[in-house]
């Protein structure tokens, strides 16, 4: 791959360093603008595959509210978000649900579980 220049804003901490990176597809050739070394890992991962935690809601029956908040229990590839959202449209839980209960195991084979982020009693 040809040498490429990219710009990132690091989101590891609130400082939000603006980082200019030159890379050749396999390694970082130069990096400027970061105020600490934590950004290096962030940029390396961003170049390979941007990873984020997905937070959303799924349907639930038998509770006060019709939806319950959920999240992945670790970061998953950002590009899978649209596919995950399509899959989660079909999920329907039954109350009661406890916080941290697994809602979907190994979602889209990412190794991450989708977990409930609140307790929802039966009403």
């Amino acid at each position: 791959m040809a040498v490429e220049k990219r710009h990132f804003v690091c989101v590891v901490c609130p400082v939000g360093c603006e980082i200019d990176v030159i890379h050749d597809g396999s390694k970082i050739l130069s990096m400027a603008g970061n105020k600490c070394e934590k950004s290096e890992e962030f940029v390396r991962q961003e170049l390979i595959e941007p990873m984020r935690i997905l937070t959303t809601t799924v349907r639930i029956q038998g509770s006060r509210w019709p939806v319950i908040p959920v999240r992945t229990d670790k970061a998953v590839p950002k590009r899978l978000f649209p596919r995950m959202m399509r899959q989660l449209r079909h999920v329907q839980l039954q109350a009661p649900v406890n916080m941290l209960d697994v809602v979907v195991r190994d979602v889209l084979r990412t190794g991450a579980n989708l977990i409930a982020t609140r307790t929802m009693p039966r009403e």
Partner: protein
Amino acid sequence: MMEVDVAVIGSGPAGLTAAIHAHNGGAREVMLLEREEELGGILKQCIHNGFGLEQFKQDYTGPEYAERLIKELEQTGVQCFLNTLVTGLSSDRVITALSPEHGALEITAKSIVLAMGCRERTRPSIGIPGTRPAGIFTAGVAQRFVNIDGYLPGKKIVILGSGDIGLIMARRLTLEGASVIGVYEIMDYPGGLKRNIVQCLNDFDIPLHLSHTVTEIKGRERVEGVVISKVNGNLRPVPGSEQSIECDTLLLSVGLIPENELSKKAGVELSPATKGPVTSETMETSVPGIFTCGNVSTVFDLVDYVAQTGAAAGAFAALFALGQVSGSKQSVDVVAGESVRVLFPQRYSFQDDLVLFIRAAEPVEKPVTIEVTPPGSRINRLYARPNEMLRVKVPKEKLAEVKQPIMVRIREK
């Protein structure tokens, strides 16, 4: 008539933390009053992560953060009154409240903690011309519809204002299948945290247009479109820059105002800069025995800061209720000097370290020094941005001899 040591009004992050700390501080009868049917306040609808990074070293979502505090509260024996709307508050600390379960309540408290939070600015607060169709929501109301009630407020959405809730909702609505056309911000810098610009807008290719605002709303029954204009240096629309955008929904993320209707009834002095009570480092207001914390005091960026003020308010409210407030009642003003737009607290009463929360007047993207004089403390930071509150601590020992007002300034290094 009921009598308690400490009554806390509101059960968001500030109120929950205050109630826990009032109990831990030795108050025997602590009462928590909440107008909704569940504890947790606005955290219940903030389903995104990023809460409690500092306080718990955990990356919680809002509901997880709330549930952690609620579980902690359940260990204390604090009495919670849900569905209870406080309607009155007097300077001698008598609360009147209404609840379907208990009817009309009158509660006398030895000390009171105000933790009512804030509310969103609306269309009338910014005066957008045009028709009055359905489809105009504040960002927080849209957040409640999507995350709690399970409704999508629209399909083609324009967001005015780049406050954090607007940015969070841009991402949330995109995930739920709506098309977010863009975020328009009247200032020439964003209102929300930089990481939210990256994670909520850039990640989803949603454009942010600085120095732009909505100058007209179109549509009879439902929003059919908006007119966007560029603004000049005085924030006035530039004639000829108008651009029509078709949409069915307009979200407003144009600022938050501390909710102080009750504080006013009790005669609490309010600060024109923060729109919250004038407060000392112990979180006491101008009315003895009435304390304040969280977003009713001044609008904070992070829940960790809210909880920090809640902890102080609860602890000092307990001391007051037990008659253990030490020292004389002398205090000095804490004054905002150059480049400081918002400063909290505004009084220092020599009882604790002075933890200052500061909002810069203008963005400074280079190292700055925060000067606190007296005692002449100088604290360095890498930048000062109006959208990211600065927090600095001056230890109590350094302030013991202070006699005149304490001035806080931000200077470029």
